[in-house]
């Protein structure tokens, strides 16, 4: 099973995990990214590309399933405005095997950071806004999966 989508509503982590739990897979690995509250950010806005973003998430999920024995993959990214502590992204990879689940989940989040058209804009508590810059090691981590 493959589930890849962008959503402007809150990501329901429990419901998404339940899909994998029902499958009875031996192993599920996950990654959850949240809006951090420790750096003076009051709101995060995620901009996407209407014609590309969902397709890019789907392509990533397809790549992961082709490379590892993954019975179920979910890649869900929120767009629009969100607050501290809210979930930005959820990645789930299930397999009969631990190695495949762990590698699949890491691959999905590492590649999402470089391959999927999404842009973060932070609003600080003083009202200023700034576009987030890529982290220096994002490209290196993503290239590690080539």
């Amino acid at each position, binding site marked *: 099973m493959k589930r890849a989508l962008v959503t402007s509503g809150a990501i329901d982590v429990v419901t998404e995990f339940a899909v994998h739990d029902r499958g009875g897979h031996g192993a599920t690995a996950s990654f959850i990214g949240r809006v951090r509250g420790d750096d003076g950010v009051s709101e995060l806005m*995620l*901009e996407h*590309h209407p014609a590309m973003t969902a397709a890019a998430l789907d392509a990533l999920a397809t790549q992961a399933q082709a490379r590892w024995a993954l019975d179920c993959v979910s890649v869900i*990214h929120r767009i629009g405005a969100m607050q501290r502590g809210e979930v930005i992204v959820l990645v789930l990879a299930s397999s009969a095997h631990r190695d495949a689940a762990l590698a699949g989940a890491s691959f999905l989040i590492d590649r*999402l950071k*470089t391959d*999927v058209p999404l842009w973060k804009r932070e609003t600080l508590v003083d009202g200023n806004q700034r576009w987030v810059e*890529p982290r220096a090691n994002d490209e290196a981590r993503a290239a590690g999966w080539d």
Partner: protein
Amino acid sequence: MLSMNISYFAWVRERMGKGSETVTVPTGIATVRDLIGWLATRDAAGAAAFAEPERIRVALGATMANLDDTLGNGDDISLFPPVTGG
């Protein structure tokens, strides 16, 4: 002379002051890099958005592309900064 639809995202969109436009480019604009160079000299907004071409990423249609890819008449071109999702 080529006519094409350009969409802008994130700080490129903000600096351009618009999300999209249809442009007809002068003769001699053959690649995405040429297009960016032309936009950078067209007006102050373009100068602000495209001062550093190496910070610009591009898609042709719904496919990631390169600055040296060739433009075609009627292309849908997206110009944006490096992505920062996740």
